[in-house]
């Protein structure tokens, strides 16, 4: 079997979640790589689009930011922020959108923090803030979340709720006034988590080769049901080739 990095495993795991016909909202970094890989592997008719307004960019080189000029090349339409978020908020188009994003903290309901650690008024650590993350998490049908598997990141309660997940459970989004979609998958450097259809609580779905459920739970600030977890198949040679040779030959994002 070919060797691979955990970052490559994460990108491949996310790419596998993308289906033909999905409109893929991409953030910066590894999420872009996952979307690019999916286009070349399993979902050639998925559409990559960016909050900056670019629809179906032809990514000959991997962009370093969603405002990178590389996202503007050979698109269907070059629009604006106003246009792109409208596609996500609009139920006709929004229900086809899969959002891929990361965060600094996540709780059991998939609520995300990318704003501050500590008190909002005098934070210990300041992060970038929402950007489009809150918008995407509010609007789209399903989101895929990249996380590093660390106790300080999987927390019982996020310090600041930047991007709404399932909020406080099954009726959370509806009672807040949000559309029905929400977090579908959390992809970490150890595992793939999902959310229980009834309770909306995080559950362990997949474990990377060589990792144990105990290791996963030891690195989380809350416990999850691990009963349904299966081993994730490692990246295939073809998946790795696409990722390494087509998507990110300079390893700008793969590192």
């Amino acid at each position, binding site marked *: 079997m070919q060797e691979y990095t955990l970052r490559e495993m994460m990108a491949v795991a996310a790419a596998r979640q993308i289906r033909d016909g999905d409109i893929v909202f991409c953030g*910066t*970094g590894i999420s872009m790589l996952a979307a690019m890989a999916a286009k070349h592997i399993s979902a050639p008719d998925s559409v990559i689009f960016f*909050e*900056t*307004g*670019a629809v179906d960019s032809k990514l*000959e*080189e991997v*962009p*370093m*930011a*969603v*405002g*990178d*000029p*590389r*996202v*503007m*090349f050979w698109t269907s339409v*070059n*629009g*604006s*922020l*106003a246009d792109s*978020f409208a596609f996500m*908020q609009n*139920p006709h188009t929004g229900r086809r959108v899969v959002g891929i994003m990361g965060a600094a903290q996540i709780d059991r309901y998939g609520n995300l923090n990318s*704003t501050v650690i500590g008190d*909002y008024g*005098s*934070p*210990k*650590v*300041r*992060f*970038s*803030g*929402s*950007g*489009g*993350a*809150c*918008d995407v998490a*509010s*609007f789209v049908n399903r989101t895929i979340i990249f996380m590093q598997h660390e106790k300080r990141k999987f927390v019982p309660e996020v310090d*600041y*709720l*930047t*991007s*709404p997940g399932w*909020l406080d459970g099954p009726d*959370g*989004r509806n009672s*807040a*006034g*949000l*559309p029905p979609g929400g977090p579908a998958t959390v992809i970490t450097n150890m595992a793939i988590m999902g959310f229980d259809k009834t309770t909306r609580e995080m559950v362990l779905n997949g474990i990377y080769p060589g990792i144990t459920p105990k290791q996963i739970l030891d690195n989380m600030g809350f416990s999850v049901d691990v009963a349904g977890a299966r081993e994730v198949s490692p990246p295939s040679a073809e998946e790795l080739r696409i990722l390494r040779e087509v998507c990110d030959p*300079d390893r*700008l*994002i793969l590192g």
Partner: protein
Amino acid sequence: MDMRTEKVMTLEAAIGKFVCDGAHLSIGGFTVNRNPMAAVYEIIRQGIKHLHLYAHSNGQGVDELIGGGCVANLEIAYGGSGRFAPTCIRFRKAVEHGRIRIEDYSNYQMTLRFLAGAMGVPFLPTRSGLGSSIVHRWGFSGPEREADDRLPDRKLCVIDNPFGDWGEAHKVVLVPAINPDVTIIHVQKADPAGTARIDGLTFADVEQAKAAQHVIVTCEELVPTDALRKNPDLNRIPFFCVDAVVHVPFGAYPTACYRYYDYDPAYLNDYREMALDDDRHKDYLSRFVHGVADHQSFLELQGKERLDKIRADERTGYAVGLDRR
């Protein structure tokens, strides 16, 4: 807005005329793209202070204004420059040390706030942010807001949909309009009257410009009016919205300008390293900003070779194969 058809001036004059201490300012661009950097550096050089800055994800420009000590208050969605600085360095330090006051929104909320300003309505509705801390945590308190007639009395309002569940929504967030004193954008082409053409994504530049009382347009190319009128479908801002037109080639450098040049990875990586250390950042400012007379001198300091490396390829609009590590 200004009805004259000849608005060309120097950057020094434009900033001096329209950007004063304490001004409410917004700048165009997104993360590492089309930030009006020449104008940003000129604002720092002129020592303008206490700005109230409005930004969605303007990235490098916002970070430099904060680092330059120009900013007192910031309403923002995102302080990052893509892979070069997932969180902008001077922005992060300033917030963590309480040197600026900040209020958070999402990108769409900020876009709608500029759009509301452009449309001349007090607010616009969205479903974004319902249930989030963005709704509940205000950067400026109620009493502070009421004491300042430049701020709306509320950060935002959640209301029940007055049309029942029409649009499948029973609640919406209303976000208040922004009307900056001045918006500065950098575009590819403008004419002397201010008609502006933007190649590629417009981000929220158009809304930011139309929302503002005054607009400064810096441009890569200053072209005759007829050159733009030949195909008005590509023009984005009508001349009567614009107060000053400034011709500044490489005016977005070190950020990118689609079809003209790419971002400069070397500069942005160096900046990150210098910005991380307070002393080195001081040196950076004195060498690259205060140490040069204008953007032309700043570019000469970078050297022709560096600028040649980032020149855009004609087919793609960016620098193909650029070393971006």
